[in-house]
Every structure is written in structure tokens, then in C-alpha cells.
């Protein structure tokens, strides 16, 4: 009988140990702050995105482990909500309204202009990495459209010319 070779199979007890440190701490901090809440998954995902701007899918196992949920459950929630972003955004995010009240005052033109000016479709980022363009279905600024929000700043009656001014005025 020949001697059997011993092989060590690495068992990863805790998921997420291979995450970059910043991402790992973003998850752990968000979980720590919100764990006591009823139905804490959405607040936790918000906290992560607020901190690092997106929610890398590689975080899913760690979030699931921390909340005692299956990966499928976390993946399901992450992918259901339009606001949660699974790709790293540009330095600023432009949320452009394409709902009816803005359509009535030229949002469709503005959309075409924005895509041309930034050189990207919706969900994409301009070549210089400054702007990610996202569609939004109503910002509640419906009497003063077309509307858009750059990061958290709302702008009304945005013409294509005004759009150009705004993206020039916003810092790098």
C-alpha cells in the first residue's frame, strides 16, 4: 500500500477575506450601524453605496454571511432596485428625468443632447470618467422641467445650453 499524499484543502470560514480593505470595511461598518434595524438589507446597501459610490457584486457573499441570508437573496435585492449600482460610476452621477412631465417640455431632446455631449448611453460613463448618466423616472420637479440631478443637486428648466454650462461648472 502506497503512502497517501496529504492535500490541504483551504476552507474559507469567513467570506469576503479577499475583498479590498476599503470594500470590506464599508460592508462591515454598514452592517454594524444598521444590524439592529428590522429589514436591514436596504439600509445596509444604501450605506455602502453612500460610502463608496457603488456596490461591487463581489461583496454579496460577505453581506449574506453577516446577515445570515443566502447569497441569492442579497443578489436578488441588489439587482432588483435601479438605484443600486453594480459598476463603478464616474466622479459625478447625472440623473436625467425621462418621465412624462419632463417629456412635455423637451426631455427627449435633452436626453439626446446629454448622450451626445457625454459620449455615452444611459448607465454609461463619459470617456474622461467624470460623469455617469442614469435615467430617472421623476424627480418631483414636474412643473419646472426638464429636470436633472447632479449628485444631490437638482436643476430645473434645463435646456441643452444649460446642460453644457452645468457640466462645465461642476468640478472635476
Amino acid at each position, binding site marked *: 500500500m502506497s503512502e497517501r499524499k496529504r492535500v490541504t484543502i483551504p476552507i474559507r470560514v469567513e467570506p469576503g477575506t479577499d475583498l479590498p480593505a476599503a470594500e470590506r470595511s464599508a460592508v462591515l461598518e454598514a452592517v454594524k450601524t444598521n444590524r439592529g434595524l428590522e429589514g436591514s438589507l436596504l439600509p445596509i446597501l444604501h450605506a455602502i453605496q453612500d460610502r463608496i459610490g457603488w456596490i461591487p457584486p463581489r461583496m454579496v457573499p460577505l453581506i449574506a454571511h453577516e446577515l445570515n441570508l443566502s447569497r441569492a437573496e442579497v443578489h436578488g435585492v441588489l439587482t432588483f*432596485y435601479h438605484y443600486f449600482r453594480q459598476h463603478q460610476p464616474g466622479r459625478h452621477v447625472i440623473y436625467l428625468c425621462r418621465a412624462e*412631465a419632463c*417629456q*412635455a417640455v423637451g426631455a427627449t431632446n435633452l436626453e439626446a443632447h446629454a448622450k451626445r455631449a457625454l459620449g455615452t448611453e444611459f448607465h454609461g460613463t463619459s470617456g474622461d470618467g467624470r460623469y455617469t448618466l442614469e435615467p430617472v*423616472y421623476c424627480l*418631483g420637479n*414636474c412643473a*419646472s422641467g426638464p429636470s436633472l440631478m447632479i449628485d444631490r443637486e437638482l436643476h430645473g428648466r434645463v435646456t441643452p445650453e444649460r446642460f453644457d454650462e452645468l457640466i462645465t461648472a461642476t468640478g472635476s
Partner: protein
Amino acid sequence: MSVIVYIPREATALSLGAHAVARAVTEEVSRRQESVQIVRTGSRGLFWLEPLIEVQTSEGRMAYGPVQAADVPGLFAAGFLGAGQHRLRLGLAESIPYLKNQERLTCGRLGVIDPLSLDDYRAHGGYHGLKAALPMEPAAIVRAVTDSGLRGRGGAEFPTGIKWKTVHDAPGTQKYIVCNADEGDSGTFSDRLLMEGDPFCLIEGMTIAGLAVGATRGYIYLRCEYPHAHDTMTQAIATAYAQGYLGTDLLGSGRAFGLELRLGAGAYICGEETSLLESLEGRRGQIRFKPPLPALKGLFGCPTVVNNVISFASVPIILQRGAQYYRDYGMGRSRGTLPIQLAGNIARGGLVERAFGVTLRELLYDYGGGTRSGRPIRAVQVGGPLGAYWPQSKFDTPLDYEAFAQAGGMLGHGGIVVFDDTVDMAAQARYAMEFCAIESCGKCTPCRIGSTRGVEIIDRLIAGDRAAMQQALLRDLCDTMFNGSLCALGGLTPYPVLSALDYFSEDFSKPAVLQAAMR
């Protein structure tokens, strides 16, 4: 004594430059070494005049608008602090006809008070409703709300008192109050205006609901597209806790009510109450089968009141002034007032709170002043993205839940989106299906698949590809969606689609023009 200047901090005013105006006023004040107190308010909802700033005088608040930062030095030179004449001077704010001719029961404090000042809120009638409710039997509070005739202002139009009674009567030690602040309908902003301009009113209404049904815990589910409302509500809730208006001992009564604000994440469907509850519980916002009703098995399986922001905000005045006072406004079975929102291509857009019974035509022309573009109004969409598109011939319909239903539409949350004669109604119909496809939760087939098939059929229809057949197919599909969908998203998407087809059929048979428009 210092002069008080009011400058809004509400999102629309900010989107039109209110912060820059406030900065300019501050600079001018310090340059001129004037003694001025600047109060940041919500908006009165006269959006074509925003940023609308006001200065306190002995006769009332003198309004100036729309003011840009560059106008500020000129205003001061014209003696603005003493209500001096200037081309932007509008007269006393309360006497502006658009505002004067309203019946502001629910929205009376908007733009008037400092939304974050509990003292200001109390000085303007705030918390009288709660004080009236505290000594009452829970069943008596429910009866007052029932007697007022208040129906759900979110769009479902269900009698609020009956919903509350169901929760009141339901057994259970843990019950919840949930506020649906996921105001996703395009053309609506009254919830946002209220939360930004009078947040304590919502807190008070929810607290009264808690007392009425025996719930000690409440949630506000707010859409993440409203960061300004989020900031204001967060601060107001903290203040209410600090001053004993929330917590374990409401105003020393020994009664408890706690409130927490939660953010949605950009899913329109979460405005549907069962999806909202799923989302609050931390899951995908997929709708639930009904029954059981949320009133019996709602949040975490407990009896739950789910009402819209405006529904809750209408409760304090009902308790303060009595059910009869509220009920005396309105027509038919639509009692009280509705905060109507004039939006889209409208010259004087904004908030008009009127008793039910006012006609669309009065709203569109007397208040709204026709289109912003100056062209004729061709179509209006009332009730959000699931509301019907109506032509001129329907403009004499009174705002009344039953009258609207009878005319083949719905009042919904009271948003009116105006389109001029450049609108392409086939593109609007296509968009309605596209929106349904983007926002469908995916639970039921008519909505999930039907919406995508709908876009395809409309594309073929406007391309002139066997048009008669496509029309028949589209109507059949709409019938399936209407009758077979689990909730209003799939179920009502046929409204905008079929109304566009019925009233504006000419737009569906101009293939070359339409294809160009859609590219």
C-alpha cells in the same frame, strides 16, 4: 428690530437658484449693514414665480419673484426691505390670485413656516389635532376620520377611516403605521412639498393614526429621488423625539409612538403598498397577493395601516376642526380637498389645493394659464403614468373620484401633466408600455411579458405594418393586462395606451414622421 426675509429651501426653488439668491441676500445685507433675519421656508407651490422671496411688513408678507441672484442688489436699491416697488414685486403673497383662490386645508403652512421649527409649527395650529386626539378613545378617532369622508390620497381612493377600523379591530399586540412616501408618479409633487415644507404635519398625522389603531411604531418609506425631503424629514423626526412629540411618552400622556424614515431605491413598483412592505422588510419589491389585506397581515405579518403622505397630513386638521368641517368641502362621495399638481407644459405650474368639484378646465386655464410654450393644449394626463390621456372634450369633467372613473380616467394622486400640440401621442403610448416593462416587478405574466410585447406591437403599428391587425392585437393585449395583472402597474398601463389610441388615433398612422421622432 430686524426685518424678516423668507427664502424657500424647497427642491424646485433650489433647482431654479434659491440658494444663490439666499447667498446674494446675505452678502447684500452685510454690505449694507442691515439688520435682517433670513428664514428658509418650504414653497407655497407657485413654481413659475420661484425663487419667490418675501419680506415681512405690517400688512403681511410682500412677495417678489421670480428672483435671481443678479436681481438682489437692485431689489435692495429699490427698498426691498421696506416692501419697495420693483418690477418683481407681486403684492402681498396671500393676495396673489392663484393662492388666494385656493382652499388650503392640508397645505396651509407650506411656504409660510420654517419647516424645521416646532415653535413655528405650533404657532400655526400645529399639534392641535394630536392634543384633541390624546384624550379620545381610539374608536372615536377612527370614527372622526371615517365621518370626515377622507379617502386615500395616494390614488387608491379607499376610505381611510374604514382601513383604520380594520386595523383597530384586528387582534395583535404589534401593529404598524406605514407612510407611503414613494411618490413616483410623474406630474406629482404634493407629498414632497409637504415633507419639505411642513414635516411635522406628517409626523402628527401618523402619530394620531398610531393612537387610533393601537400601533406604537411607524415607518415612512421615502423615495431616494427626494434627497431634500429626506434631509428635512430626518431633522424633523429628531426634533420631534427631542421634544416629546415622538417616543415612549407622548406629551406626558404615557402613550408611545416611534417613527423611522426608510429610503427606497428607485423602484416605481414600491409605491404599490404590498411591494412597499416587502421592500421595508428588506426584500425585492415584489407585490404580494391580496388577500390577506395589509390591514390584517401587513408589515412583518402584523396589522398595518398604509396611507399616503397627504392622507396622513389631512388627519390633524380633521381632529382639530372636526369631521364635519372637512366633510363640508367637496362633492358627491369625494369629500374635503385635494392638493392638485399642475405639471408638464404649463405656464403657471404648481400646487392648487381645492375642494373636489373644480373642473379640469378651470385648473388648466384659470390657474395654469395654458401651456408654457404658448401653443394650444392638446392632451392632459391625469393620475400619473397609469392615467388616461384626455383631449379637450373632457376638460369639463369635475375633479371627483366617481366622475373621473365614469369618464374613463382616474384622479389618482392628483397630478395633471399638460402637453401642447407638438406631442406625439403614439410615442406617449409606446412610452407607457416601455415604462411598465422597465418597472414591472416581474411577479405576474401579463405585466412582465405583456409590456414588452406591447412596445413591439406599438412599434409595428406606427410603422404601418398590418396596422388593423396590430390594433386588434394591442387591444387584446390590453384586455389581458387589465384583467389579468396582479396590481395597478400592469392593470392600468392600458389606460394611457388605449386612451391615446382612442382619442388621438391620427398619431398612429403617420409612419414616416413617427419613426423619425422615435429615433
